[in-house]
């Protein structure tokens, strides 16, 4: 019976997996966790180089506000050019 079932549910048991103080890189193949310094306004992913502006929901809870447009656009343009080049090579 439901009322007698006192073991942790899936949601309760997963609660311990919550991480505070970190954000994840938004690049799908990276998704690395980054721990910004308290109150900082920007962070760069040490793995893939994507740069982000930060917003602090609470002093313990940062979130990515958005990209640093000029940095990430340049990275994306380079990747796009590489992919175009690769597709040309592939079609030869």
């Amino acid at each position, binding site marked *: 019976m439901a009322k007698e079932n006192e073991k942790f549910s899936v*949601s309760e048991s*997963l609660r311990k997996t919550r991480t505070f103080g970190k954000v994840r890189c*938004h690049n799908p193949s990276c998704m690395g966790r980054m721990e910004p310094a308290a109150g900082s306004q920007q962070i760069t992913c040490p793995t893939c180089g994507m740069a982000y502006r930060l917003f602090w929901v609470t002093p313990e809870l940062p979130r990515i506000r958005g990209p640093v447009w000029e940095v990430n656009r340049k990275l994306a343009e380079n990747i796009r050019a590489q992919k175009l080049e690769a597709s040309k090579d592939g079609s030869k």
Partner: protein
Amino acid sequence: MALDRKIAYIDLSTGKTEIKPIPLEVRKKFIGGRGLDAYLLYNNAPEGCDPLSPENPLIVSGGFLTATCASATARTHFMAKSPLTGLLGSANMGGFFAPELAWAGFHHLVITGKAEKPIYLWIHNGQIEIRDAAKLWGRTTTDTQWAIRDELGDQEVKSAVIGQAGENLVRYANVMTGIKNAGGRTGMGCVMGSKNLKAIATRGTMDIKIAHPLEALEFNKKFIEQITTAKVNKTQGTLGTPFIWGATNSWGGIRTRNFQFNQMENADEIEPEAIDDIATKTIGPHHMTGCFGCQVHCRAQYKIPSGPYAGKYGEGPEYTSLGAFGGEPDCKSAETVLTGNHLVNQYGVDNLEIGSIISWAMELYELGIITNKETDGLELRFGNDEALLEMVHRICTRKGWLGDVLAEGGIPAAQKIGKNSFDYLIQVKGMSNLHSDERGTPALALNVATASRGSDHLRSRPAIDLYHLPESVLRKIYGSPVPYDGPLSSDHMEYIGKAWEVFWQENCYMAVDCLGICKYHTVFLGATLPNFEDWPKAIYYNTGLEFTPKEIWDVAERCNNIERLFNLREGLTRNDLVKGDTLNHRYFDEPCRRGAPDIIGAKIDRDKFKIMVDEFYKHHGWDNDGVPTAETLKRLGLDKEPTHLL
């Protein structure tokens, strides 16, 4: 007791009402809310009926847990055959209406017929009256609500109303309550308009006896703790749902310029944090508020800071208004987003649909498919804020050729505009897609393609798929309450195992829609939020009715199948671009051009997509055409439908 709440059948043509109890056998099979509404629609809508005819039943409900001690159970659901899609119509809103309806004695209303002149329903403590609404016709959604309160002499009356969009039979008109709570998809406000039904007003003081009140309160404390400590809900309580738009735009998942781009660059002025600054400046630091019985408070209050509507009070905007008046039309002004949000709430029209359709028209204008002749001289270009807002007025009042045509919805409009306009219409089953771009997220693409009310993110979207959760965590969530040992992948650009995620989420969302719980209180945006194993106690303590997690799953699956049966009866076929489970060709043919490096070049692989749909059907127990097999219907107790148990 929640079990005592009744169903009322109201015939607006004859003025007759009939009130019936809801048998326990029906509760056990369909629980309530959207699930029971689907049963009622399948049983009461004549096959092939015109959605705007008196025969189309409009069904209104609260959830089974609404107005009990269970947290965040304020949702109101509307269902009818959709005048936008010709298939299942379904819309869900927050606010305070459904609890009031429950206190007035009712969980479900089935409204048929058509009144001779504008009327509104007044439902209070078991009584139902039909009242004249001549003085309300033509008024905005908020004016209507305040006028009803004044007329009835009770400022606690809650009303679900239509605005001018519903009166003018805009096929994607909303039902509204409060300032911005919108039953806002598939045109349920249009169905109300077709019945000359301006509003449903309700007030109740009939107690709902809680089965085990102390245990219910104690359990709810744990529930609240689980919900309010989640990062996603802390963020929602600060920035509201726009935070999702901001995060999604960051990596390149936002539909921009109809479907030309997947990211709105330099959108800093309409980022959620910027909107939050405006709310803080115009209202104050405590500008977030919420629905009945909810602790998250995801709804911002604001005043429009500048422009012709400066100083007007509004609530929101939601994610969808940032898409509708920001990303899609490529307008970068917060004033435009907040003004657009205000206008759609006052007219009572679906922000998502109207933003998508205007953006589609903008692309057609830039391609020369429509010209100044059709727009009556309006420069309907992307980034033209004035033209965007002008089109909102024109559509809601059906002004001009284009306003009238676009008010009919995308597919009828494409037929009238002609040429190859349909190729650019981003829709599924006749309903526009959310302002997200799913080309880099196959699971989300499957979700929008197969959602029962047309393209939609609130039917089966596995949003947590974007979080790259470890497979062990995914397995814990998606392996209960029915075992699943098939593949699962943490990579959101993968196709493997995604069909199961979509299938699981579809049942999860149906379950909360039956109970009346807000989706922000389950596994939608947060992986650690309550789901199947948490609900039996909430149900038992509040209502006395016992369900196991698996039994709730079975109810959800049953209800999803009855929605499927309705859609199949009304013409759904698997590969039909108008009424099927498939996507616009641009998903398969045009790669993403912006966003994170890995997203650039992404598009949906046609063959892998077909396999995902096959798998999704298989999980459901449907054949390759998406039709439930005889064994599936028998297993779910649907083999004799329609059964007319109510």
